[in-house]
């Protein structure tokens, strides 16, 4: 349908980010819901997330959600308007732009926190 151009990348990244977000949602729900098990269990689990890889991973998750969100809106526009498919390529660059804004915000707020060693 897209002849291996932008649309194919949009589709591939949508699925990849979707799987990543679902995995994160499962991990996040189980971690946060551990408040049920009491303060020490919650504390023990969240001690792990102070590791650098998890703190950086959270920025990646925010980026994945932002991309999936804006590309999802692109899909809705293509499906429910008469003009969406014609401009799908431009809409994809727009969704990358908006996702980029969220990623820059996440980086701008979090990198100083991580470097501050909190």
């Amino acid at each position, binding site marked *: 349908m897209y002849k291996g151009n932008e649309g194919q990348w949009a589709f591939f990244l949508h699925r990849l980010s979707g*799987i990543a977000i679902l995995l994160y*949602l*499962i991990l996040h729900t189980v971690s946060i819901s551990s408040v049920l098990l009491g303060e020490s269990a*919650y504390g023990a689990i*969240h001690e792990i997330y102070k590791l650098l890889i998890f703190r950086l991973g959270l920025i990646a998750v925010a980026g994945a959600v932002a991309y999936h969100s804006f590309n999802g809106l692109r899909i*809705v526009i293509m*499906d429910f308007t008469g003009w969406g498919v014609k401009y799908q390529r431009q809409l994809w660059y727009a969704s990358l732009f908006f996702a980029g804004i*969220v990623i820059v915000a996440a980086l701008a707020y979090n990198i100083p926190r991580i470097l501050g060693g909190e």
Partner: protein
Amino acid sequence: MAIKARSFKDARSQAKSNPELAWWVFMRLSGTALVVLTLFHIFKNYIFVDEASWDYEKIASSYADWWNKLYLLALLGLGLMHGANGMRYIIDDATAKNRVARFWAKAIVNTLIGAVFVFGILALVVKIPIPGVDTP
């Protein structure tokens, strides 16, 4: 097989069943709602706030707020349903030639998602004691 349509009219003609068409509509409606719910959640609780500040006491206090409970319930329910159906599309495409793999992949994914949903709902329903308020 997932619907590969580019309009509601196409989707209706391609859908093999009414549930398939209903899921197609659900993905677009829930997706649009989730864009707002999730991005707001991420900015409010993560980007503008240090994630390390979410200790047990702060979680317990936020879980005492009924509007917050409702918000999280919507996020959890819509998010997991959207994710479960998305995984169904992916599994259907990946196991087009293998019925046994398809069955087990769906069984495992849906059981996991169901269990997480129950655990998440429990944390919202059960009262979490706030240190210093509900417990000494």
